Each structure stands twice: as structure tokens, then as C-alpha cells.
């Protein structure tokens, strides 16, 4: 009796293996999403998942993804990385080697994206991180791309914006010398500013934790600068701006910043002192442009909330993949060949137009793309879209 059961089990198991070996349901491409669904930043995971689902539904309801005349249905495989680096690596391994996805999209926070990118690069599966701005996510990893720009690029855009908008060649920088991200931004701003023909008349620093910036600000005021770049975060910016206002620095100096300023807390801490200042960012809900506005309206309708930067960037990551697949011409069915083809198509992409702007990847897989500049209005509690600076290499 027992023997019969074993035989039956064996037959069942064999048939299972055989059926999985049989040709898979034709015309389906798998997209792996590695998102922060649970953990400290579930909003990020939710936005990522929502946008990926929205893009998938759009392409499928249009009859599927058209690759070389053949229609493929896009299917998402969603993995939760719990906002932990080790889970992100595990999720990436599962998606790439077990689920056999054609492309890996995610993870979003840099601490998760870096380990995930190592896995994808090792296993040779193309990856696009929508939101990770840390250079190490793509550095020396030919299989890895991102949909956002990186910090150093932003500093360059700020230098250009500062000179053009305020029509000056005298710039100043104030940054934390103890933080590597701020340090690089400070230096990169200086480099670009000088390359564009300006002079940096004050290059001032402070140390992490400092609350008094009066000495540096007085010096900057004295230097005759017209633009002051502050690549710091939303918890330090209010102190700097308030002290600058009290010292009369802001009367003829325009303070500009980067996306580290972007937080609802900025207005809570700064109040009306920050009104009228500009900073660069990935995203704003009032970006002009038919494509962007259509996405925003649809997302809002579908999920009841405004799409944030992760939503916009994930949506672009999905369409980057769609376009890369189309550029590929055809899928062979050999996973490794197809993955390599997608990778090459991503690397060779030019002027992709997404909802977050126009983008072209660099050799490193980072994006040269449009940067949005927003103006702070703390009385209304919003960051108003001011203009979009078109992509440019510095």
C-alpha cells in the first residue's frame, strides 16, 4: 500500500517537473519589482507598486508589449524587501534566479538598492532603481541603471541655474565638511560654477551638529556673492536661512539648494523665512507638460493620493524597460540573451521622455536628465514648480 503511495507521489512529482519543462504560456514577459512594501518606509513601497501596476495595466490593455511585431503580456512579480539591505539582496536573488524575471526594477532606498544592484550585476540581470541617488548603486555595475539623477549632477544644475536665473558670476557655497554627500556636492558646485565662467568668492564650511553659522554667513555677505548654494538637509537649512535673514544676508544673496531640502518638515521648522527660495528636485505635482499631468491625474484617480517622486520615477523605470524591449527588436526566449539585449538597449537609449523629464543614461548608468526647480511657499505649505532645466552634461 505504502509503495503505491510512493509511486503515485513520484508520478505526480515527475509530471510536475515535466509540465514546467513544457513550453511556457507564450508571449509573456516577467518584470520583477523589489520594493519597500513593509518596514519603516511603506509609503515608498506602495508608490512603487502602484506605479508599476498602473504601467503594466496600461500596456496590457493596449494589447500588450509590442516587441518586433509580437505582442507580449507584461506580468509583475512583486517582492517585499522589508526596507532591509539583506532582504533586498534576498529578494533580488529570488526574482532573478527563481522567478526568472527579464528585468529587475527596484529597490528604492539606496541602502537596499546597493546590495540588490550587486546581486543583479553578479547574476547578469538588468536592473533599474527608480529612486536611489547614491553613486555606489551603479558604480562599476554595467547591468544597473537608475531613473533618477545623482547628487553631483544636481549640483551642476544648480550652478547653471544660479548663474542664468540671477545673472551673476559670483557664487558662494556653505556646506557640512563632515558629511561626504554634502562635501561632494559643495565641490562639484564649485567646479561647475567655475567651468561655466563664474568665480566662487566664498567657500565656507561647518561641522556636523553646528548651530551657529553667523561667522560664515557674515563672511559670505562680505564676499559680494549673489548666489549661495546650501547642499544641506531640511533640518539644518532653516537655521542657516533664519540666521541669514537676521544678518541681512538674503537681501542681495539668493540661497538655493538641492533635494535634501524636500520635506514637509522644512516649512514646519522654517516658517515664512524660507519663502521664495529655490531648490532642485526630481518631482513636483504641478510640473507642466501634458504627459506628466495625464499621469498625475490618472494616478490620483486610481489611488486617491498625489503621486510622489517614487511613483513618477517607477513609472518611468517601467517605460524605460518597455522602450528597451522594443528597441531590442525581438525576444529569443533564451533568458540570458534577452537580458543582455535589454541591458544594451538601456545603455544605448537616447532622450527617453518620461513623466519626470527627458533622460539619457551615462556610461555608468546614471541619468543625465531634466531637473525640476521648485520655489518654496511655506505660507501655503507647498513647493511650487518653477521651471524645468533641460538635460545637459557638465
Amino acid at each position, binding site marked *: 500500500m505504502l509503495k503505491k503511495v510512493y509511486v503515485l507521489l513520484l508520478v505526480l512529482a515527475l509530471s510536475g517537473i515535466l509540465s514546467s519543462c513544457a513550453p511556457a504560456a507564450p508571449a509573456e514577459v516577467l518584470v520583477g519589482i523589489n520594493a519597500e512594501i513593509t518596514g519603516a518606509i511603506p509609503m515608498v513601497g506602495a508608490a512603487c507598486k502602484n506605479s508599476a501596476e498602473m504601467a503594466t495595466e496600461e500596456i496590457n490593455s493596449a494589447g500588450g508589449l509590442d516587441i518586433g511585431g509580437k505582442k507580449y503580456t507584461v506580468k509583475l512579480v512583486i517582492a517585499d524587501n522589508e526596507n532591509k539591505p539583506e532582504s533586498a539582496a534576498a529578494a533580488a536573488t529570488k526574482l532573478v534566479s527563481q522567478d526568472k524575471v527579464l528585468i529587475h526594477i527596484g529597490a528604492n532606498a539606496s541602502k537596499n538598492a546597493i546590495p540588490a544592484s550587486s546581486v543583479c550585476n553578479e547574476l547578469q540581470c538588468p536592473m533599474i532603481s527608480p529612486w536611489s541617488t547614491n553613486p555606489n548603486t551603479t558604480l562599476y555595475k554595467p547591468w544597473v541603471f537608475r531613473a533618477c539623477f545623482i547628487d553631483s549632477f544636481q549640483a551642476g544644475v544648480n550652478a547653471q541655474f544660479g548663474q542664468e536665473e540671477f545673472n551673476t558670476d559670483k557664487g558662494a557655497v556653505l556646506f557640512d565638511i563632515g558629511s561626504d554627500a554634502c562635501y561632494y556636492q559643495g565641490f562639484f558646485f564649485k567646479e561647475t560654477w567655475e567651468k561655466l565662467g563664474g568665480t566662487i568668492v566664498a*567657500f565656507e564650511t*561647518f561641522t556636523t551638529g553646528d548651530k551657529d553659522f*553667523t*561667522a560664515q554667513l557674515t*563672511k559670505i555677505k562680505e564676499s559680494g556673492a549673489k548666489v549661495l548654494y546650501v547642499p544641506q538637509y531640511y533640518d539644518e537649512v532653516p537655521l542657516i536661512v533664519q540666521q541669514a535673514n537676521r544678518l541681512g544676508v538674503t537681501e542681495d544673496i539668493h540661497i538655493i539648494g538641492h533635494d535634501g531640502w524636500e520635506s514637509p518638515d522644512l516649512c514646519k521648522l522654517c516658517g515664512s523665512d524660507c519663502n521664495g527660495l529655490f531648490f532642485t528636485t526630481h518631482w513636483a505635482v504641478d510640473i507642466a507638460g501634458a504627459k506628466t499631468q495625464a499621469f498625475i491625474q490618472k494616478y490620483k484617480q486610481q489611488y486617491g493620493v498625489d503621486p510622489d517622486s517614487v511613483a513618477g520615477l517607477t513609472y518611468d523605470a517601467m517605460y524605460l524597460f518597455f522602450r528597451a524591449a522594443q528597441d531590442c527588436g525581438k525576444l529569443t526566449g533564451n533568458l540570458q540573451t534577452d537580458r543582455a539585449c535589454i541591458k544594451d538597449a538601456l545603455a544605448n537609449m537616447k532622450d527617453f521622455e518620461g513623466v519626470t523629464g527627458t533622460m539619457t543614461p551615462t556610461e555608468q548608468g546614471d541619468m543625465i536628465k531634466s531637473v525640476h526647480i521648485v520655489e518654496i511657499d511655506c505660507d501655503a505649505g507647498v513647493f511650487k514648480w518653477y521651471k524645468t532645466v533641460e538635460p545637459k552634461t557638465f
Partner: protein
Amino acid sequence: MAYFLQQFINAVQLGSIYALVALGYSMVYGVLRFINFAHGDIFMVGALLAYVGAGFLLRLANQIFLPGAVVFVGTMLFSMAGTTLIALLIEKVAYRPLRQYRLSVVITALGMGVLLEHLALVIVGPWRLSFPLLVANHVYRFGGVSISTIQLLIIFVSLALMILLEFLVQRTKQGMAMRAISYDRETLPLMGVSVNQIVSLTFAISSCLAAAGGLLYGHAYPIVEPYMGITVGWKSFISAVVGGIGSIRGAVLGGFILGFVEIGAGAVFPSRMRDLISFVVLMTVLLIRPTGIYGVARRQKV
């Protein structure tokens, strides 16, 4: 010229706050010969209590008419009272039983500092709170020099408190007892003075000054959070040592010296070298006068 005058004002503002907090270190050291490492966190508690008090009084001022000065003084008194209570409690629980054990009491002081930080962390959370301004800020311009109402307020209130303290210590009986205890702790009880009372008074005064420092600091740098006391605490401690720990005038002088050195180093040299230069200057002062500027070398009794 205007540039240096402006930096001078910046330094006076920063120095006043260091001086107020440094006084607390110095007074406690003068009386007990021990360094109250929790003092920086007492300062933080003062700032947080001022935040709470100011929030309450501002809401009250919306309903009934309260002049700005009343709100400011009320907030200061509330913060001083609360901070004093906490400091007295700490003294009673953590310092008094260990008064004979010099080293252990330093550890309990450090422990109390950590305890206060984490208590604040549990109660208010790690968020940065925006400190409400209790005076309408106006920036006055004289040539190229700007001075704001808040800077004037900080300088004025700290100077007033320092003068009040000087009066208290030099002209009152309790002040005389404080000076006496610092001179000879063994003989004083024989004169019929309660050491514990004077120690409590010293803690009360030093924490009142820290609370005032917290309130003024909140006006100068209007973001308060549970870890704000650490940097200010150790910088004020340095001020107290440079000025000559145990000496009231020394603490005030030390506070202003640190303010001037920090601002001056940033003003004259590239700001990247600021901390480097300011600490070299402070160390030089100590090498020349090991006991601090107003400090007196004491014979160590064996």
C-alpha cells in the same frame, strides 16, 4: 570695519549663551569640586520646558490679552522652575549619596545626562521642534552692520542675569556661604551653615541659568531636540575650564573667549580650519595658565 563689528556682535551673542551654561559648571565645581556632566542636558531640558511653556502661554495669549514681556518672563520662570526641580532631584538621588566618592559621582553625572536625553527622546521623540519666537524680531541696520531684536535680547538678558548672580554671590548671606564652602568645606558646618542647603541652592541657581540659556538659545537657533545639550554642554565646560573652573568671573570670561575664538577663527581664516584653530588657541591658553585665567592653584590635601 563693518565686517568686524558684525562678527563682534555674532561673537557676543554666541559667547553669552556659552557663559550662561558655563556658570553652572563652574558654580557646582566651586562648591562640590566635581563636574556636573549632566549640566548640558539640564540645559536641553530647560530649552524643551521653555518650548512647552511658550506654547501654552502663546495659546493663552490668543484668548486673553497678555503683553509680550509677560509671555517671555512667564516662559522663563516656568522653565527655570521645572529645571530647578529636576536638578534638585538629580542632586538628591544621584550626587548626594556619593559625595565622598569623587569618581563614582562623575559616572552618575554622566549617567544622569544620558537618562535625561533618553527621557526626552521618549517623551518628545527624535523630531526637531520649531521653537516659537516670543518677541517680534526686527533687524536694525547701522551702515553695514545688522543687529536683530533677538540678538539684543540675548545679550541683554544674559548680562542682566550675570549681574544678578554677581550681586547674589557677593552681597547676600547665602552667597557668602557659597563662597565659604568653596574655600573650606570642612570648617563651614562648624560655623552652623548647612552644607546641603547651600549645595541645593547652588544647583538651583546653576539650573536656572541653564534654563535661561536654553530659552535664549531657542531664540537664537530656533530648533530644539533631545541631543541639543551635548555640544553646547561640552563647549561650555571648556569655557568654564579656560576661564578657571570654580570662578564665576572666569566662567563668564571663558564663555566670551570661546565665542570670540570660534567666530574669530571662522572670520579670519578659512572656515574649514575653524575648529582646528579655535582648539589650538584654547589649548595654548591652558598651557600658559593651567588652572584657567581666573583659576587659583590649590594645594591638594593628602
